[in-house]
């Protein structure tokens, strides 16, 4: 059974601390191995004021991702990306001052086995883990295994999640609660859905753990609006579309700076 009395881990402590200064949190995403020098994106993210960085381990069948991240995954895999190589790349990085959170599909975790997988993450300096196809009721074992390895397993909450379950997710999630802003896949959207505010409010009723809104947040305006409800945002497809279009670390740094600014204005 998951030990519910654990004290917060480093990711949560870091995010809480930043939030408590009144800062809107920003967690940009990059698909690991997407370009030869892909870790430069991480440096750029940190420099642009990211509060945490999400690194995707590409999977052959990203069933919860829209076209942009599907394409990014395919590109990275075609370049030979794998869990092992991506973690090796991360190991070579200096401390960026913000927590690294890996996200991937459960098959890649199972492939190595939860213990080995989490140990490898930890060795690479990763402290958080997001597994979008491992919902709360299947996550107990990995939560414990991860915790034992020093990894915080983040759970996702969705607008469709009904009441008692939502509180349970908020309680059992580690690091932060990943609030899925809308009923859909990842990918840029024209506007933030009403469901985002609603869901955040509902989550907040049960926890004071940081809540980051993700899925579809693509523009400074959307980030600003999301920041009004949640503690911060995850920005994935909007980053990856630029990367796929050839944008380099500096371009991304500039883009993230606009998001940072939007969050800070709030």
């Amino acid at each position, binding site marked *: 059974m998951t030990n519910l009395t654990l004290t917060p881990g480093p990711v949560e402590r870091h995010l809480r601390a930043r939030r408590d200064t009144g800062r809107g949190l920003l967690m940009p995403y990059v698909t690991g191995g997407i370009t030869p020098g892909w870790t430069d994106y991480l440096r750029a993210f940190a420099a642009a004021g990211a509060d945490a960085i999400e690194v995707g381990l590409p999977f052959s069948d990203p*069933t919860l991702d829209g076209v942009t991240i599907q394409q990014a995954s395919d590109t990275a895999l075609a370049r030979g990306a794998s869990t092992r190589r991506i973690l090796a790349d991360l190991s070579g990085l200096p401390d960026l001052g913000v927590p690294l959170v890996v996200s991937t599909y459960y098959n*890649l975790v199972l492939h190595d086995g939860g213990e080995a997988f989490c140990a490898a993450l930890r060795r690479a300096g990763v402290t958080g883990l997001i597994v979008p196809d491992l919902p709360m009721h299947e996550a107990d074992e990995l939560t414990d295994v991860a915790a034992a390895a020093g990894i915080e397993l983040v759970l996702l909450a969705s607008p469709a999640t009904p009441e008692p379950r939502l509180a349970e997710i908020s309680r059992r999630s580690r690091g932060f609660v990943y609030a899925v802003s809308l009923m859909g896949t990842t990918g840029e959207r024209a506007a933030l859905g009403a469901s985002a505010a609603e869901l955040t409010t509902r989550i907040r009723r049960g926890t004071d753990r940081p809540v980051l809104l993700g899925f579809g947040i693509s523009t400074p305006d959307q980030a600003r609006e999301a920041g009004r409800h949640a503690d911060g945002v995850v920005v994935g497809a909007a980053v990856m579309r630029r990367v796929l279009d050839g944008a380099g670390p500096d371009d991304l740094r500039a883009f993230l700076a606009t998001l940072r600014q939007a969050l800070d204005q709030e």
Partner: protein
Amino acid sequence: MRDVSTSSRSVPTMGEPRALGRFGEYGGRYAPESLVEACREVAEAFREAWADPGFRGTLAELLALHAGRPTPLTPARRLSGELGVRLYLKREDLTHTGSHKINNVLGQALLAVRMGRRRLIAETGAGQHGVATATAAALLGLEATVFMGQRDIERQELNVFRMRMLGAEVVPVTTGSRTLKDATSEAMRHWVGVTGDTHYCVGSVVGPDPYPWMVREFQRVIGDEARAQCAAALPTGVPDQVVACVGGGSNAAGTFAGFADTQARLVGVEAEGGAGAARGRLGVLHGCRSLFLQDDDGQITQAHSIAPGLDYPGVGPEHAHLRDLGRARYVTVTDDEAVGAAIRLARTEGIVPALESAHALAWVIRAADAGELPAGSTVLMTLSGRGDKDISTLKELL
């Protein structure tokens, strides 16, 4: 020849799954959080419906009046003579739309109506499940959208047009291998956005709980009918071998369910290039924990089969469990063997089988030739579908 230790073991197999939709260590509901509630609703609705004689009666009536059940058990007399075994075919090819897929789809469509849904979505490989879904939707006044890999659209043109003729929308999927696996991913992605009014009609015993269980129960009619028909037609009452092809595994699961508590040996036949049960390793895909073909990095590999319905890199969780238990075994045959078996059945029995079903027959032929099936042994094989859809594939080959 008979492996007494296996076949006489009395395990309570093929009943309800354990908590969290588990078959042994397989199954589960590994759905994105956005689909968890939808799955739960399906599970709850199915459990209620399945316990409701009214629902069962309506479904039985649809199966009888619309789909043409019961299907016959045909003794394959000439081929049996050649093989030296007694081969009986459970004729799912004679159902409306031409494969066992209709059994499941009528069940789910009726459930969708009961749940107040107005629309069905489905993935399809061979197009049979898509056609069945389009059919059930038309019959019950629902809308239907079918996701189909671009590669399958090309090789199953006939079925694509049938779906459109039936009023369904067919959405080409151009990602990945452009086959069933990718169509399934795309259907799941789509479902996330429309759970409120749309039922995802999964086509095999795969996917998150309750699908593997529910689809097996809807397909159980194959095995239940065959069990009764064997009891009437076979001197031994129960066949020695029960054989079915396995893509996701729904026709096999439905067939096996009728014989799980007998001495019959259960054999699932996979495509050489899509042998999830025979050669997969533990993984999670499309919502369930099961066996999948993977590379050294844990990426799902692309299946390759001449039979689009077997062109899937995994297998339903219950099959993984039956394999672990030793209750069923899983074997593979090549494209060439399947084509050869299809032609042989056409020439000896006047039945052109679906290439999927031809895999099951190819194993029977091989096992009989190799003496693995003792002379005179009785074999029940589910002929899951008719070969019309494969005619253009065969035409190119022959």
